[in-house]
């Protein structure tokens, strides 16, 4: 049953560019990129209860790192570029995560919010590297002999990376690390009492989350093709938080579904022009009222699955 579902999913993803119009190939890439960010954010917020309103900042770091590498070192294969983008962002995540250990709840949200603004200011100040407000045009990247210059080629790159990172996240969530992170969320004191090194795991969550977002940032740079500080405003961070809340905190499937819903919603509401924020807000409030555990847990209930009151920790 699960194998059949997985095979169908894989077939849809592989066949999509041949069945769907060109624009939806681009849109699917954006959804996958946002899904990677949402998974990363969920590992932090959903698993260890550390809320971040600064993930647009991590995305920006990954995006600029990848863009600058693509411009300055065009011979570098894309996977290496993306890996470096992820590692650079992870290093920043480590630097932010350690001082944030003392912060909780709203105070952490404030600190991460400020981080997002600091990143934008840094992009502006480092204009010899980032071209500041003028923005950076990202050339097509190389993968061996191929130039990734079409929406379809970039789509397959994004999907491959997303699949890899989803599998990795599922594995993390099932190991001792994943259970430890969940334990931290449920009760820090209880987790500590059962031998979980609180500081280490909370920092680890920050680093992994930043790595995911950094890789997504690299893909973002390649798919969108243009970066400017305007791309990474605070509302983007809020969108990411909305994705995991709508999808389901602490659920990887939920992250993907949330990313798909919010991205598609944002896209289809663009036509409503000045009513966009209003309609978007109304939909968010409604979905939180009627699906407090997110879409993932609502789907679980509909499917008639054995549902405990708090099935938010479900990792499928």
């Amino acid at each position, binding site marked *: 049953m699960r194998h059949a579902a997985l095979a169908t999913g894989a077939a849809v993803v592989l066949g999509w560019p041949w069945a769907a*119009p*060109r*624009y939806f190939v*681009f*849109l699917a890439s*954006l959804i996958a990129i946002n899904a990677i960010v949402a998974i990363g954010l969920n590992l932090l917020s959903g698993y260890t209860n550390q809320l971040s309103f600064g993930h647009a900042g991590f995305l920006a770091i990954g995006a600029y790192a990848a863009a600058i590498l693509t411009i300055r070192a065009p011979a570098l294969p894309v996977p290496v570029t993306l890996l470096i983008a992820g590692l650079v962002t992870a290093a920043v995540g480590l630097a932010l995560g350690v001082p944030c250990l003392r912060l909780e709840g709203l105070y952490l949200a404030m600190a991460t919010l400020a981080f997002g603004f600091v990143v934008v200011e840094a992009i*502006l100040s480092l204009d010899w590297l980032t071209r*500041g*407000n*003028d*923005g950076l*045009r990202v050339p097509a990247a190389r993968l061996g002999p191929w130039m990734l210059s079409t929406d379809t080629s970039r789509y397959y790159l994004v999907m491959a990376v997303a699949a890899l990172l989803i599998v990795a996240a599922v594995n993390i969530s099932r190991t001792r690390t994943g259970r430890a992170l969940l334990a931290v969320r449920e009760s820090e004191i209880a987790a500590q009492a059962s031998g979980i090194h609180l500081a280490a795991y909370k920092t680890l969550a920050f680093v992994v989350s930043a790595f995911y977002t950094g890789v997504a940032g690299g893909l*973002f740079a390649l798919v*969108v*093709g*243009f*970066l*400017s500080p*305007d*791309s990474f*405003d605070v*509302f*983007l961070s809020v969108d990411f938080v909305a994705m995991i809340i709508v999808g389901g905190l602490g659920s990887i499937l939920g992250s993907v579904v949330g990313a798909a819903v919010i991205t598609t919603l*944002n*896209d289809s*509401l*663009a*036509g*409503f*022009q*000045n009513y*966009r*924020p209003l309609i978007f807000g109304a939909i968010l409030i409604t979905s939180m009222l009627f699906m407090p555990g997110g879409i993932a847990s609502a789907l679980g209930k509909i499917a008639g699955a054995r549902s405990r009151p708090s099935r938010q920790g479900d990792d499928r």
Partner: protein
Amino acid sequence: MISRSSLLLLLTLTLSVLPAAAQTPGVSDTEIVIGGSNSFSGPLAFTGEQITKYGVDLYFRVINDAGGIHGRKVRTVYYDDAYRPQDAVANTKKLVEQDHVFAIIIPQGSPPVVATLDYLEENKVPLLFPYQSSPVTRGKRYVMQGMTLSDRSSKMMIDYLAGQRKVKKFAVLYQDDEYGKSFLTAFEKDLARYGLKLVAAESVKRGVTDVSAQVAKLQAAKPEVTFLVLVPGPGAQALKERQKIGWTDTIMVSTGPLTDERYLALAGDAAEGVEGLSLWPDPVNSDLPGVKLYREHMRRYFPQNEPNRYSIAGYFAAMLFAEGAKRAGRNLTRDSLMTALESFKGYETGILPPITIGRDHETQKQGFWVRVEKGNFRPMTDWLKSE
């Protein structure tokens, strides 16, 4: 149940529409579809809404009610990008690939416009009259410039001040981005022609409202003229700060994109005596026939909306598009539109001086000098030339 005759009708209709659509996207027997990504939320939401819904659409309503262009009505599609480049890219792709628009009209702001520039050029989609002044959009086959570009504005301003009024000491307060820096570079180049240099240049980060430190530094350099290359908020703030510290021996001069009613209203009495380059005739008071007609159309279709520079810019863009499409004839294609626009020689709009476009694809090359007197822009010169 669908009857057989209606199915047949549907089939015939589809078949008759399809070949035309395959030739030129967005052009059918009865309709021309054009669109754009613009700011309907975010920092420039007011401007975006005025340009599109009350500007472009106003003119097209007039045209459509008079029978359209060669029998085709013009329909517009807009998407909100909130000034985010990635949203502008997504919207523009959607417009081209899903809505099959014929052309993109008057998108706003350098970052969103530049983000879509290469994509549109590759797909040979006309990008018409983008509402931004950086020269980065020059030299493309399918781009027609809108607003007077910064190097032309600079040339007019320096030629007038250094050439005619013999001013020697200039300073600049500029926004730290493409808009501000393109003016700064142009000022330096044009001053060099008169053997002059800027005595001071201070930058303002975008979104900052406190400019007191910069104004104090500029005052210390004792310039005769201080250029303001800002947006309305900080621009008005600079004027108020100047009034507060009693700095009177300099003339504040606003650049084209800043010289508008909103900046004037924000500054209040601190704006008195300020000069500037104006790219548009006064939309509220001008007696030019085109501007009077614009106000009359606004009163007829959108009586609740006040005339302003943004809606007149959109109205003007739609007017140029309509004239271009008319000249291209019934067989409208993207290339025939571009060729038709290039052929403009002395086209009378009644709003700006006769429009000649030509190979450089620049539609606006002029401005005139204004001075704020009793809260209004009073013209001080005729149209200045930048060639």
